[in-house]
């Protein structure tokens, strides 16, 4: 079994264990909070009660009636409500990622090309990076509003900082010998950029990118929790007002699933692009093929004396 599969299995097992522990806990802690909601709702309650009552957030449409207009609480309505909210949150994650990555890498490459620029900007970058992102949310809310636009901007800001720093480091870490080699064969700046710099920095940029995935989901969650009007996070805000622990749990699970899935998906897709990297494990049980000295490849087989 290769490592990718075993990691997946491990993750599933971990989820199972945590799920069981949760259920156990719900039977131990039977206290109830306000509005008769158990503090630790078990799985039965979560699916029977909390999920069903998510339909409260459905505004009607697609032939499914909204409870607020007198319709029944149905799973269909609940799933539609959650789906709609998820899409909004997802849109924010995607938007923030796109702008953040493009902006971060673009600016990073620009600054990396000039030693003076990099050193001059360094203190600003340090200050910006050490200012906790989450503490900036109210400021962004004030500036751009707590709408999709504002949240996308905020996420883009956070992602851009990560990608910028990652890009600068990646360029600095390009082994000098590759640049020297390109110079000795007469490569133009454009060629050096395209054939040496870009491929050489790709693995490190990919690592920053994967980091940004987790960050952007976190920033969307945080942004929505602090005053948004739509999205998954706002369901939590509503639920908090009534101490509906179950609904908070469901949204929490959804966030975990979304973040994990998008991360795993991208990791798998981008892995193929860096198959050349010495440290990328191939998904086979055997180690990467190494041509052994002494096999067909004799160094002097073709040279005549």
């Amino acid at each position, binding site marked *: 079994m290769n490592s990718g599969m075993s990691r997946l299995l491990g993750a599933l097992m971990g989820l199972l264990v945590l799920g069981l522990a949760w259920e156990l806990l719900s039977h131990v802690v039977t206290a109830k909070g306000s509005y008769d909601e158990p503090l630790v709702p078990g799985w039965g309650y979560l699916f029977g009660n909390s999920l069903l009552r998510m339909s409260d957030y459905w505004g009607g449409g697609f032939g499914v009636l909204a409870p607020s207009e007198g319709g029944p609480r149905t799973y269909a309505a609940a799933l539609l409500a959650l789906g709609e909210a998820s899409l909004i949150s997802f849109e924010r994650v995607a938007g923030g990622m796109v702008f953040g990555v493009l902006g971060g890498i673009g600016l990073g490459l620009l600054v990396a*090309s000039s030693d003076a620029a990099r050193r001059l900007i360094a203190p*600003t970058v340090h200050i910006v990076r050490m200012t906790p992102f989450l503490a900036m949310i109210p400021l962004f809310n004030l500036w751009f509003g707590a709408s999709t636009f504002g949240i996308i901007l905020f996420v883009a800001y956070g992602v851009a900082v990560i990608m910028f720093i990652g890009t600068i480091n990646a360029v600095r870490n390009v082994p000098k010998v590759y640049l020297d080699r390109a110079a000795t064969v007469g490569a133009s700046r454009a060629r050096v950029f395209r054939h040496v710099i870009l491929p050489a920095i790709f693995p490190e940029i990919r690592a920053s990118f994967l980091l940004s995935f987790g960050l952007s989901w976190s920033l969307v969650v945080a942004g929505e929790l602090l005053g948004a009007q739509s999205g998954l996070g706002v369901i939590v805000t509503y639920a908090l007002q009534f101490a509906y622990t179950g609904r*908070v749990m469901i949204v929490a699970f959804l966030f975990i699933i979304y973040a994990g899935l998008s991360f795993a998906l991208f990791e798998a897709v981008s892995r193929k692009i860096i198959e050349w990297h010495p440290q990328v494990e191939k998904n086979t049980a055997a180690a990467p093929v190494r041509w052994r000295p002494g096999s067909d490849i004799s160094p002097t087989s073709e040279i005549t004396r």
Partner: protein
Amino acid sequence: MTFRSTGGPPDPELPRFRMRAGNGPPKGLGMQQKLVDALYTVAGIALFFAVWWIAASQLPRSRLVTPLEAGRDLWTNFFYSPRLGVFGLGKVGYGSLLLYTLSNVFIGLVTGGAIGILIGIASARLKLLRIFVDPVVLVLGTVPILVAAPLFLLWFGVVPFTQVLLVALYSAVMMVLFSQRAAQNVNPVYERWAMTFGAGTGARMRHILIPGTVPEIIGGLRITLASAWGLEVFAEILGAPSGIGQAIKALTNLSNVPGLLACVVIVAVTAIVTDILLVVLMRRVAIWA
């Protein structure tokens, strides 16, 4: 534009010398180099404030104010801020609120971090523990910490424990990851060599594994600390009896931009200072690294 790189193994004949295609040796020589570095730092900081100032002069007061104004607000409200008293925070200023935030971060980081480090190092060596720890950490290591914030608030209420628990949980998870990696990165040849001298497991732990992982663990602590600040402030904004986060929340409701900026500045400054302290600690504890 030319790309400069400093990567690659150092050439023994060219100590600390950066080769540039087509240019001569660097203008600096030792002392001169240090002076240039210092100048760049000063210029860079000046640039930051200059950009802030220019932006503030171009934008309305409802969006941004100058660094001087933010500084003034910070100064006048540090020990006592009448504004904040309205929000049920009592007779406080930014200073005392900051202290609350700082102590929560510290307690959470230290307790959670200690647990994480122990579990991390142990699980790197004990396969059985590893099998158990890895999946849990993998799941908990993504978004969940933030969604736990409102949950903890529901369970434990508006008390310091809620925030400390959040920070501690996050610190524990992060430090497990960092410590595992640190322990794995200790070259096994050191322990093997020690075994040839007759060193037992305990001795090897004490003299090789623990000292060997210190630099990387402190590095992990720095990263965790930086995020912990944000987590604590966030948790406070959600609901807390005190803390800079509460000040931020209050000032946002008042749409008080100078105050907001002052709070962000003070958080940033404290985060930078604590980071520097960790670096100093690292230099003292791991001079050899």
